[in-house]
């Protein structure tokens, strides 16, 4: 190990130390704010109380009904947007003309904050799960359809010509040429669609609903039960991180095959 390597290793260790110190100081300030400086318990609960509440929520299984609602809405929304996004994207990608017509249109709509559709969906579909599914499906449709168009639409012409000249029929062409070439791009779009579907389902539960994890947080906030609310926030953040990690893992594995 040269002196230079040792210096970078020491720098890396120092960086890790700074990161831990930063998080530790944050927690310490939080603790001091609630115990010594007397910040209102309603605005900022004691971190120990939050920890006890979190343990209570997880151990008692109180989160299960809300989690079921949220995951059910997510599954329905993602199923709809994947089906529509991949099939429409494939159809559009079959013609250069259609790509030129539809790709800019879809990209332009995607640039609007689609959360604005939520009030319309609540009016048309009610406060129940349907409006959340509709919003999640709408928001996640765009990354999926755009990446499907990008994936299938930009397959190297030489591969297509080579396969044709070797006598591949349409099915073989799809299975052995188009799909392998397009898959990585489509999978990236599906992962992004999953993440935005999850976030928009939680967001629409937060804004207008009777059930689900987002609704639980709002409910606890309105009852000023802040310690339990913080516990649920931590719980949701962990769930979201876990689901995103699982989907990234799946994407990586599917890419390899």
């Amino acid at each position: 190990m040269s002196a230079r390597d040792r210096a970078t290793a020491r720098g890396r260790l120092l960086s890790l130390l700074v990161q831990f110190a930063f998080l530790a100081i944050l927690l310490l300030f939080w603790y001091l704010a609630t115990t010594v400086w007397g910040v209102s318990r309603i605005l900022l609960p004691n971190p120990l109380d939050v920890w006890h509440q979190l343990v209570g929520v997880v151990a008692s299984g109180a989160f299960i009904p809300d989690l079921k609602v949220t995951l059910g809405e997510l599954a329905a929304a993602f199923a709809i947007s994947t089906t529509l996004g991949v099939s429409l994207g494939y159809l559009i990608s079959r013609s250069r003309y259609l790509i030129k017509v539809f790709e800019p249109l879809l990209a332009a709509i995607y640039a609007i904050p689609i959360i604005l559709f939520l009030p319309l969906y609540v009016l048309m579909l009610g406060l129940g799960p349907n409006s959340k599914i509709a919003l999640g499906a709408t928001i996640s449709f765009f990354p999926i359809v755009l990446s499907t168009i990008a994936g299938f639409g930009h397959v190297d012409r030489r591969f297509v010509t080579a396969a044709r000249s070797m006598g591949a029929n349409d099915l073989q062409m799809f299975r052995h040429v188009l799909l392998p070439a397009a898959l990585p791009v489509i999978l990236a779009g599906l992962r992004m669609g999953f993440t935005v579907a999850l976030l928009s389902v939680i967001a629409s539960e937060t804004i207008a609903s009777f059930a689900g994890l987002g609704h639980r947080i709002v409910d606890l906030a309105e009852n000023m039960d802040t310690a339990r609310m913080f516990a649920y926030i931590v719980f949701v953040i962990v769930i979201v991180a876990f689901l995103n990690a699982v989907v990234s893992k799946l994407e990586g594995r599917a890419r390899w095959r």
Partner: protein
Amino acid sequence: MAMIGSGAPRAPAIGLPQRLLRRPGVARLAVVILLLLIWEIAARFLLDRDFISPPSVVLMSLGNLLATPGVTPALWLTLCEIAVAFVLAVIIGAGVGLAVGLNRFAHRSFMPIVLLLYGIPQITILPIFVLVFGIGAASKIAFGVTHGMFPIMIAVAAGVQKIEPVLLTSARSMGANRIQLFRYVIFPHMIPSFFTGMRLAMSGVLLGVLLAELYVSTAGIGYFTSMFTENFDATKLIGLVSVLAAIAIALNEIVRRAELRYTRWRD
């Protein structure tokens, strides 16, 4: 010349509509008009008018919507919240991005923390913002700032990181002081990433402010969306949503144009 008139295959005569449809831009417009027509016909003849309103009616009653007491001030307030949140997000984001990007040690230490914070689904903490900042403009601005500042932070940090060290070293060896170094080397090089960051910050700020506006149902835009929903006033609801969407499109377009203009020299 003898070919002419001797029955040579001629290009099939096609009408003007077909020729126009060959241009993607025209076809795109036709798709939009077709969708609006389907919406118009479905809303007029097939669906319940309590739940959906045809686009022509929405357009004609926009004046009516804006004359509804409180709607125009709420729209103005939302626009102001977006503007203030955007300016704050750009200042904080560019400041932190520069501080983190210009120093290798700071970058290695704090960038993971920035990415960690950016990864948190902020919608979960929206109720805390309203508890702390109240139901007025402050909570919406704050929520817009936290949505907008991370993208610009990351873009600016990445931009100044990519400055070639030889440029900094040679400027320093030619006797540039810190201010000159910033003015003549760092600043011109961060311009493209700064504008890219501003575009991303704008979509973040729009999302944050609109989420908070819709969440608070006792004041501002959220009050009107919930009131129109409860009264089954589909015309006014669709009108209000359309006006907000138009504001969002206009603001996005401004920053997108600015980005195109100021990033071109990079290529």
